């Protein structure tokens, strides 16, 4: 850590990786952000941002509008330029990873974009097969049955595979997009607002699905979400974007954390309602 970052961490009372209390327990760090800065022109979105995500956990990333949740996700994925700092995914520094190594890394992460980002010219099944074909080159029938499995897994009816994304509803597109993100059984999954726009039943199903997959596949998930129910239901820890940095802690730690935005978020009427349910 740089001197500045250490000072900032002290000021925020965080330990390594933006955590309030150390939860590492000797687990492998699959996503490691250190001193990350993102900026557009003069506008600095993140500065000295630290974050550790451990293997097998589900982390919910929350923050007010415009604090750069999606931007952070894009920065991690290399879709935004990283101005300063270091990002390690599965132990590989993303800066300067090219060619074969990059391909291999990409084979181990899955991304679900907010509006699906399915390839509009391909059917849903073909959308799911694209990453498999690119990274694993299996036989056609096996790829077809994997696609059918993933479609069933995310709770879509079997005939969805033959449909084009434009024929699906918003919620179905989200599920199809998750199916594509899961195509390679990625170790590290990034979800951008996965339950936004779903009805409460669908959202609850979705949470359940993530929980199930995490248990059976040992997934690690970083999800941007505003759904307080999701946070309670599936997330082990919550990362809050505050003043260009993240503060990570369990739900209990967050409830006790003293910051006006955090207090309002978790203790506001919606936060209380979700807490009561959980």
């Amino acid at each position, binding site marked *: 850590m740089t001197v500045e970052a250490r000072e900032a961490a002290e000021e925020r009372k965080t330990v390594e990786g933006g955590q309030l209390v150390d939860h590492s327990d000797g687990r492998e760090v699959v996503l490691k952000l250190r001193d990350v800065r993102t900026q557009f022109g003069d506008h600095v979105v993140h500065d000295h941002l630290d974050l550790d995500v451990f293997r097998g956990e589900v982390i919910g990333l929350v923050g007010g509008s415009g604090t750069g949740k999606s931007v952070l996700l894009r920065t991690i994925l290399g879709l935004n330029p990283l101005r300063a700092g270091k990002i390690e995914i599965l132990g590989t520094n993303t800066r300067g990873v090219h060619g074969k190594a990059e391909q291999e890394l990409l084979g181990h992460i899955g991304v679900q974009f907010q509006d699906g980002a399915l390839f509009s010219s391909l059917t849903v099944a073909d959308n799911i097969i694209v990453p498999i074909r690119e990274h694993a080159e299996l036989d056609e029938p096996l790829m077809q049955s994997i696609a059918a*499995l993933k479609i069933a897994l995310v709770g879509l009816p079997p005939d969805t595979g033959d449909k084009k994304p434009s024929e699906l509803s918003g919620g179905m597109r989200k599920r199809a997009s998750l199916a594509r993100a899961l195509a390679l059984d990625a170790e590290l999954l990034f979800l951008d607002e996965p339950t936004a726009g779903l009805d409460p039943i669908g959202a609850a199903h979705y949470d359940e699905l993530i929980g199930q*997959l995490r248990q*059976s596949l040992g997934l690690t998930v970083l999800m941007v979400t505003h759904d307080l129910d999701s946070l309670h239901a599936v997330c082990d820890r919550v990362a809050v974007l505050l003043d260009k940095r993240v503060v990570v802690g369990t739900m209990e730690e967050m409830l006790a954390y003293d910051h006006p935005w955090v207090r309002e978020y978790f203790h506001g009427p919606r936060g209380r309602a979700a807490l009561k349910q959980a």
Partner: protein
Amino acid sequence: MAEPDPTIRYVERGGTSVLEVGGNWTVFSLRGLKQQIDKARRAAQGGARKQASVVDATHVERLDTAGALEILQLAGGPEADIQTAEQHAQLFKVVKENMCVPPKPRHVDFLSHWLEELGHDLVDLGGQITNLCAFFGEIIVVFVEACVNPRRFRIGAVVRQMLEVWVKALLIVGVLCFLIGVVIAYQGVQQLRQFGAETFTVEAVGIGMFRELGVLLTAIIVAGRSGSAFTAQIGTMQVNQEIDAMRTIGLNPIEWLVLPRILALVLSMPLLAFWGDMTGLLGGAVACTVYLDFTFVQFFDRLRDTVGIWHFYTGMIKSPVFGFIIAAIGCFEGLQVKGSAESVGQLTTRSVVESIFCVIVLDAVFSIIFLLANV
């Protein structure tokens, strides 16, 4: 990713045959699986491979959904009896619950496929014609309403569009027509010189540019440049639901988007065609000074004496009609966009092809009319 391959063995165990699988079963390690299976089947005794009712997957090291799916398929389906290591039990359960036969792609023979496509196309065409009629009807209604209440002509929007379709097109139209003028003059000189009539090159350039080439070239450039832009703009708005938003606010998209574009192009086309005519003549004149030793004054004197004004008028009469048809098709196709960004691309292409087609058909119709009118 290089990982140890999965292993497959058929073994006899206590009277029953058992399919033993081990190693890594992940999506990255399944590549050469088919050969593996074949090898195992060959190695197994005749009886064993048929009746492997039990699968022993306790030696599997790494497993993911693709691997579990393949093991289950080898075992013969989700009901198969599988012994698993404890850490994989949950995964097998999830895959078992969701396993299904991928729907078989529908096979149709050539003739029925062709008939089906033809039927779809005909129905689409019918719908398209109905929509087109409705669209023209709506334009007329809005136009008449706007004539009653001229404020509804949205002059600001018309002027903005004219900047795009007229002013910004001047350079490209000018350059192309100039070059075509040069080319016609050069060819004319070459051919007409053979019987000593090279001075008639002036008529060739003048009549050719005025009657056909000036306006036709301009129309084709405008169709490719502005017609496509109209479709793309309106189509993108359609995809973003902006058009729907306009309707709910009570703004008529025909009045706000279509009419200004049509008016702008109807006004711009004659201006552009005139500009094209002039640059074309200039090109012809330049070529004549080079190949014929004409001076500019000689060229334009001869032009004045031999090329009647009606040649110029015919081109000018055609141009606003071409402008109207290009703008109308561009806007119409833009409004036909549905759903995705892919559809914007498709319809933009279609709009350009259709407008060029219509322009040339209309040009032929005009030729007949002018022939009958004897001008």
